């Protein structure tokens, strides 16, 4: 496993909120959802990346005190959040499920969050949070009439209204259009610059581009890799790729491709020539030239291992 050391904030930093997991596991009967995960986070944005079912939501829910670890310790700002309501003064959660009480207006929802936090001026705090997520024009409409993206934004306003030190967001960009996504990224960057710990779960690496400084990659309940976004990105794009080609003469084309330095192997199958390459970019640039050079017509190029799971599996195998 390739493990790149994340930028760990020293646990002794007295004024900075820190999220820490030590040997955390969680299982449901015989199913292990999270297996012996340890990491420590300081201020800034951390991406929790992994395919569906990798254990991201379980980790976030344990950080939020909504699940107790079966083994290990979860600490948020030095406190175990499970069964500790006071921890929520320093914690904000944006759950993945999009449901928000549909009979409330956006403003009422955020003000209710502020009141439940015991804020002295809940109306003013709600108004500020709604401005942050750019929903002033829709704040007095019932949440039931909101689009998916608007519901995501009002949930984020509800999580930010009490100015928490730690913000946990489970797939927050689901349903947002590109413009809303960019605006929300600006909000989160600003919050991170103010010293907050922000953890964002996602199954899409590109969502974390230009946003998360550190990335934790979860696969099958384990922490497969952790490090700077660029390093994780490099690992994912520089891995071997497999293509299936169909042409007027697969055998000749395969033989010609084997002479190319980036090609590992070529296998002739019923569906065409299966080509494994170390450099996807170079191979796709050179392929038309090689085919033209030997007079072979290309009919189809199909990547055959582009599923997210295969990318993550590659990282695990490293």
């Amino acid at each position, binding site marked *: 496993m390739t493990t790149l050391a994340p930028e760990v904030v020293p646990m002794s930093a007295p004024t900075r909120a820190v999220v820490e997991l030590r040997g955390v596991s969680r299982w449901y009967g015989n199913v292990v959802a999270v297996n012996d995960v340890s990491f420590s986070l300081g201020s800034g944005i951390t991406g929790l990346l992994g395919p569906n079912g990798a254990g991201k*939501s379980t980790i976030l829910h344990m950080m939020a005190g*909504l699940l107790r670890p079966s083994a290990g310790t979860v600490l948020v700002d030095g406190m175990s959040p499970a069964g500790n309501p*006071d921890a929520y003064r320093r914690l904000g959660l944006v759950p993945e499920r999009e449901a928000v009480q*549909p009979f409330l207006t956006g403003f009422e929802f955020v003000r209710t969050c502020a009141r439940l936090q015991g804020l002295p001026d809940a109306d003013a705090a709600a108004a500020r949070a709604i401005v942050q997520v750019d929903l002033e024009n829709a704040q007095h409409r019932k949440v039931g009439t909101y689009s998916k993206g608007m519901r995501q934004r009002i949930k984020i306003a509800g999580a930010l209204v009490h100015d928490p030190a730690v913000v946990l967001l489970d797939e927050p960009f689901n349903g947002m259009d590109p413009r809303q996504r960019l605006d929300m990224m600006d909000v989160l960057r600003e919050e991170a610059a103010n010293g907050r710990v922000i953890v964002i779960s996602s199954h899409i690496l590109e969502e974390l581009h230009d946003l998360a400084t550190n990335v934790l990659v979860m696969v099958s309940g384990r922490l497969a890799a952790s490090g700077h976004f660029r390093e994780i990105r490099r690992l994912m794009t520089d891995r071997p790729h497999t293509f299936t080609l169909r042409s007027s003469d697969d055998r000749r084309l395969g033989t010609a491709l084997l002479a190319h330095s980036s090609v590992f192997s070529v296998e002739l199958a019923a569906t065409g020539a299966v080509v494994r390459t170390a450099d996807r970019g170079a191979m796709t640039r050179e392929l038309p030239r090689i085919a033209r050079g030997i007079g072979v017509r290309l009919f189809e190029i199909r990547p055959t291992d582009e599923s997210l799971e295969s990318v993550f599996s590659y990282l695990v195998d490293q």
Partner: protein
Amino acid sequence: MSGLLSRTVMWLTWRQLFARRRVWLAVAFALAPLFFTLVFMVVGDDGTDARVGFLGVLQRDIVIGTLLPLAGVIFGTTAFGGEVDDGTLVYLLVKPIPRWQVVLSKLAVASLSTFAVIAPAVMLPWLVLRNADLPFSFAGGFLAGAAVGSLIYCALFLSLGLATRRALVVGLLYVIGFEATLSRSLGGLRSLSVREFSIAISQAASAGAVKIPDALSMATVYWMGTIILVGAVAWTMRKLVQYEMAERL
């Protein structure tokens, strides 16, 4: 937000209980006995004994025996059940308020809502039929029975809302199977019936205006009612403290 109850949780629960069609259901429950009374006035015997007999049966079997447990099922199971179903319970759980306070606040609103629906169902027929043989204590007795019944029913159904995702169905089966059938046909089960508690309290609080010969003793009502109420509330608090988010694996 201090003490035993949270005003914000109560406000949120109240909005939730009376959202959408439940308002109209509540109005129908509150007015149905008045409708029966008006029909009785038109087609029934207008003698004093007939009035006393009709109102007694209406209050005991329709209001206390049927509408009260149904209103309790609807409000009690919705107070938590709706939030469990749609996932909005998480917004209460990640706030710095003790979970026992959430339970007490929801119980208070569900009970008061149930009572608010049943009180007109008790009072309106009495207002139409009242005479010297039907003093206020007649209606007052049933109001007292309905108040205690609302509290115990809602405590039971609140716990059901956390225990199962089919709380409304299970609650209705309980009302039909136990309260309306088993507890009436098997004498030994009467001392576990909230309906029987309410009827016994109605008689005891009516200063003799309500006469029910086979009512439970107040000692039975006191002890059994307290055990069921405290047991249900304690179980719900424990369940909410241990509540964990369901995971999709």
